[in-house]
């Protein structure tokens, strides 16, 4: 169940490879920023899911709007001669790192909880009544 999004990622990638339509120079840059935005939103979604704060509406609108805003900003930057592309890459890169580190902490905490719980269970099995000497 956890791996279902990963499978979907690969299916999407394969579909993209099947199209084999070379994209134009500028659109390629914008799409790269959009990819970063999408990656950031997905990391954020995983994190929210781990925190138990996941909302369908927030996630889906966040994904679409982040992608579109990133592309728009990169495009605008090219039009007005400022490299907003770099700004987008920097911001999204930072956020991806943040989200990933939080995800890692959640995973570690869960793993340690699991270990502690198992040790308690084992000691409970070995010593059914700890109150008695």
């Amino acid at each position, binding site marked *: *169940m*956890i791996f*279902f*999004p*990963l*499978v*979907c*990622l*690969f*299916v*999407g*990638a*394969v*579909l*993209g*490879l099947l*199209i084999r*339509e*070379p*994209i*134009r*120079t500028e659109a*390629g840059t914008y*799409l*790269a920023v*959009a*990819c970063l935005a*999408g*990656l950031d*939103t*997905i990391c954020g*979604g*995983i994190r*929210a*899911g781990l*925190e*138990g*704060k*996941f*909302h*369908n509406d927030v*996630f*889906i609108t966040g*994904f679409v709007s982040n*992608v579109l805003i990133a592309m728009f900003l990169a495009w605008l930057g090219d039009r007005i001669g400022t490299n907003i592309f770099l700004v987008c890459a920097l911001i999204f890169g930072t956020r991806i790192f943040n989200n990933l580190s939080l995800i890692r902490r959640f995973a570690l905490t869960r793993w340690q909880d699991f270990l502690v719980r198992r040790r308690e269970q084992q000691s409970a099995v070995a010593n059914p009544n700890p109150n008695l000497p």
Partner: protein
Amino acid sequence: MNPFVSRITGQSPIVPLSIMAFVLGFMISVAWITNDARAQRIRSVDPDQAVRIGSGDLNFQDEYKKLKDEVLRLRVENTALQNAMAKETGEAKVLNESLQSAKVFAGLTEVEGPGIVITLNDGKDRIDAPLVDMIVHDTDVLKVVNELWNAGAEAVSVNGNRVVTGTNFRCVGSVILVDSVKIATPVVVQAIGAKGTLIGAMKLPGGIVSELQSVDARMAQIAVVEKMQLPAYGGATELRNLRPVEAKS
């Protein structure tokens, strides 16, 4: 509603995550820079770099050399046939003589004679001189050839490529193109002409040779040759727009 208040919900993230992961995978694979895409993106980089990037896979050089050899062989045959035809009558002989001297002048025949050889080499890397001065550039070759013509050279070749009207030198990344043939250092410039004049002119203080030697003595070396052969020009001679003006009698 305060958006920063925790809104803990029990919604499962799997399905929307999967949908968006699908979209993201699609976007990444489309944005992935393949060779085709790179070829298209080359247009947006500097022309100099673009040629350097693009020249990796395209190797016309061997093909060009083969065709050039073919042209040279055919030109020798052509000269032999012209001479054979001209043996018949006196008028044809006169015509042929003027034709052959025109061909020699245009650089379409192999020629020999005394002259000088200038070898240009990249200098050894030093701290006290900028790296850009250490490298033999297309402009250096161009200047050397120009000074040789100026000194009265009658035929010039660069690394075995005859310099004729329209010969160009161009820097392409790490190599120099002489009429679309790639050459690299050492660049050997051979010039046929009056040895003394040539050598005197090339050793002129402030000239290109002394300029190169001031950076590193090995960057430009001059040698006198009693007799050497220069190859014929092997490139195309087709004229598309040029027509001689008919003389009014």
